[in-house]
């Protein structure tokens, strides 16, 4: 080193000395310090309470059960609803597990024409809401549909055809749109972890099947448990698809009581049943997952050495993947496009573009508000964890994520209870909320959406901030930046990509969401999803095609993002 400096030059260059503590007697905190000391944890706790409140209000409603309601339910629909719910969950869970993990194994362990492409194409059904695939299936394969018509014409009017509007039909539809969750997690786990473990097992003398059974399957268990958990929760939250198929679940029960009687207490008590089943699913998932966690392997990953398939085996593998993709995504989308064109050009005249614009705008407003609330809340909670690490902020963050594990109908009714409680509380001080706020307002709707969709936003932003090393935050602070400055100048620019991803995820979830919108929307405020559901319920499939396709197109955005990320990872592993 040549040109060494003397100590920093005098006054002009010195950072403002007044910003440094001057008292030599005791530690003196300034107002700003105190704000950052308490501000972050306070914000995190407040957000957690807002998220937990609806669920807590709902859960407490069961403490004072209305026996009459329960007796009436028990004597009418409840036993059947419990049975249907159980059969549906078991059926969808098992078949998604088989289909998802089977396809994941197929595209990871074997090479055949298109195996790479299918690796990410097979997650496309994530963009297909179950209520859309449901009504397309009913209209095409149902009794009045073209397939059964052709069947009867060919084999006679009494020819047997598998009943479509049945439990079996519902299980097939849910499996076709939900298997990607299992597929995705299993595929990632296989790619990240299984390669070297499988190789080691083989080198220790295990046969391929033995290695798969004793090493790969246990390794996959956490991923399979997590994937099945999501599948079951998505099945439980649905009330629309099951109705097309004449399946009567407890979620349908909640919606029916709410829409039929507007009996808040009865609906909320019944919703606790749905909550209890959700908790059961979470508990089961935790047990099956064990102490292991999926996706934890880091560093250099060895891919499973894929075996090349030839001849009829290759054709069979290709056909299997192509068939699943066709029936779950390709064919229904094509059918929707046909309907949309028919509706646009048909004799009925103009499509109802005016209404479409209105509902599209509603969906956009709702999604934008939800995304804004969720992102701001997620940023506050993650920043609180970074700047004030400790049990208070980390418990708050975990509590903030519970909404995603609570089925939509439960969140909707819980939010109503919370707003009613707030209303009562405010009335003691003279002025309550405007009457409609609690029962049907945009505020209630955005609140419920945010409770439900904060978790994906939070997880994404948390993992984005986790990429910023602790030492970077510490460096910035020791260089004189207050936490808010660090957040704005360091954390935000560095986690911009994850914030964008979070916005996309929350927006798409909000556009697809049906149960909450159906239960809580203000009168006249229909979203694309509600409109689709209503039109399909009236068998106006051609008209439902446009909003349904719009939802699918919007939902394809995160799927495409995910695929790009996956193929990038794959490229990194192979190079």
């Amino acid at each position, binding site marked *: *080193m040549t040109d060494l*400096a003397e100590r920093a030059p005098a006054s*002009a*260059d010195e950072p403002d000395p007044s910003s440094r503590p001057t008292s030599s007697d005791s530690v003196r905190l300034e107002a700003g310090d105190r704000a950052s000391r308490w501000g972050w944890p306070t914000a995190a706790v407040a957000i957690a309470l807002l998220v937990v409140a609806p669920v807590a209000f709902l859960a407490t409603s069961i403490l004072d059960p209305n026996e009459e309601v329960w007796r009436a339910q028990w004597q009418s629909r409840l036993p059947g609803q419990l049975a249907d719910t159980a059969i549906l969950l078991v059926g969808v869970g098992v078949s998604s597990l088989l289909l998802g993990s089977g396809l994941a194994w197929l595209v990871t362990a074997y090479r055949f024409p298109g195996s790479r492409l299918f690796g990410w194409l097979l997650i496309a059904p994530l963009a297909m809401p179950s209520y859309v695939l449901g009504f397309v299936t009913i209209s095409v394969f149902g009794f009045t549909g073209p397939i059964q018509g052709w069947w009867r014409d060919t084999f006679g009017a009494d020819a047997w055809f598998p009943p479509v509007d049945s439990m079996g039909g519902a299980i097939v539809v849910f499996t076709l749109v939900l298997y990607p969750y299992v597929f995705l997690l299993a595929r990632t786990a296989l790619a990240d972890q299984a390669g070297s473990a499988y190789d080691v097992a083989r080198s220790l003398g295990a046969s391929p099947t033995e290695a798969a059974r004793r090493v790969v399957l246990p390794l996959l268990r956490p991923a399979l448990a997590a994937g099945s958990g999501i599948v079951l929760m998505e099945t439980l939250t649905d009330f629309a698809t099951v109705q097309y198929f004449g399946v009567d679940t407890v979620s349908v029960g909640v919606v029916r009581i709410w829409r039929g009687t507007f009996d808040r207490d009865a609906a909320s008590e019944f919703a606790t049943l749905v909550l209890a089943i959700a908790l059961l699913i979470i508990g089961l998932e935790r047990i099956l997952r064990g102490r292991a966690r999926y996706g934890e392997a880091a560093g250099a990953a060895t891919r499973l050495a894929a075996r090349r398939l030839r001849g009829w085996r290759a054709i069979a593998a290709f056909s299997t993947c192509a068939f699943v993709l066709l029936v779950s995504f390709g064919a229904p989308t094509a059918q929707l496009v046909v309907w949309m064109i028919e509706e646009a050009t048909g004799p009925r005249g103009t499509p109802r573009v005016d209404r479409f614009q209105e509902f599209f705008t509603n969906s956009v407003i709702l999604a934008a508000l939800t995304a804004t609330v969720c992102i701001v809340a997620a940023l506050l909670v993650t920043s609180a964890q970074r700047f004030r690490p400790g049990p208070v902020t980390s418990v708050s963050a975990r509590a903030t994520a519970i909404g995603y594990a609570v089925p939509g109908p439960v969140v909707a009714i819980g939010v109503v209870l919370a707003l009613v409680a707030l209303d009562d509380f405010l009335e003691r001080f003279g002025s309550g909320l405007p009457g409609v706020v609690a029962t049907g307002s945009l505020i209630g709707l955005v609140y419920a959406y945010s409770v439900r969709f904060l978790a994906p936003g939070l997880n994404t932003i948390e993992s984005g901030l986790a990429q910023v090393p602790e*030492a970077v935050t510490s460096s910035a602070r020791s260089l004189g930046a207050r936490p808010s400055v660090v957040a704005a100048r360091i954390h935000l620019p560095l986690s911009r990509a994850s914030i964008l991803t979070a916005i996309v995820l929350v927006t798409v979830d909000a556009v697809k969401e049906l149960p909450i919108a159906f239960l809580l929307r203000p009168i006249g405020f229909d979203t694309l999803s509600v409109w689709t559901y209503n039109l399909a319920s009236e068998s106006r499939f051609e008209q439902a095609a446009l909003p349904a396709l719009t939802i699918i197109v919007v939902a394809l955005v995160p799927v495409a993002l995910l695929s790009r990320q996956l193929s990038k990872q794959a490229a990194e592993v192979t190079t």
Partner: protein
Amino acid sequence: MSAQPPLEVSGSVKSFGDTVALDHVDLTLQPHEIVAIVGPSGCGKSTLLRSIGGLESLDAGSIRLDGVQVDDGRTRIPPERRSVGLVFQEHALFPHLTVEANVAFGLRGMARAASAERVAHMLDVVSLAGYGGRYPHELSGGERQRVALARALAPSPALMLFDEPFASLDRNLRDDLRHQVIAALRATGTAGLIVTHDQHEALSMGDRIAVMRSGRLVQIGAPDIVFHRPVDLFVAEFMGDASFLPVTGSSPSSALGPVASAGLDASAAARFVAMVRPDDVEFSPDPPDHHDASPAQPNDAGWVDGAEVISREYRGTHWLVDVRLPDDTEVLAAASHLVNPVVGTRGSVRLAPGHQQVLLATDS
């Protein structure tokens, strides 16, 4: 410059659950002084550093920087209002900012021209003039660490803190950077506290060395004192290779001769050992026609005959040999790189003239 010590830690206590990370730590740095804190992982050295930097708060005790109390065990001044520079192992540059903007980060509130001048000056100090427009990912590991150093020094902190600053660099780069860091600290007259688990790094960087164990500073002093006059077995073993020889007699002595002691009585001798560093013990192979004279007793020149090499390790500048003496004690010794002390070689050892054995209690 104030006459206040840049750092004054007194009675500092910090625990995480049941783990005591800091157990009544006292440490004062003099102006311009560089102190290296060394200890095994988990000894609390990083916690001490983080507490001084304001990243952890003390349970009790106090920390003063330039005479200003920044932590009194109840409240702490946040890191952004302490005049402390931090350099981490993982350099922690802001990846979205250029080198220039990184170094200027701590200079907010300064006039633009003055800030630019200061940045240029700091880059000069770390020999990175002309690198201002680059981004961190375009730099090598050593260059990044130098930018981190310049960035931390730019706001003229009263004290610089280094947390394992070179651990992620390879050996050659490390030595080079070590000199640059010391030069930069000396040049700016900044006091520095360096945390490391590497004894050699500590010995070569610190004006003083502080050895830490289980949350306590067990010894603090000049490098040669800590190395050759350790206060206990732990420090002796941690700071480098050492032999521990049994001690006998009322005027205590080991196989290598008398041990300096102040009022040690014979009955206590069994609880002590004599510590000696290998570079203080000479090994000389016997000439071919040699016959052992009086084994196990040092002769007039201090040589002990009848030693046998039982293992060896080439150290570049010398051989490190483990020899067994006739009374079955083992001692590490240095042999010239000119000889070839194969296992089984017989010879003599002695304590190099002017060196002493250190008496250490075994039950510490």
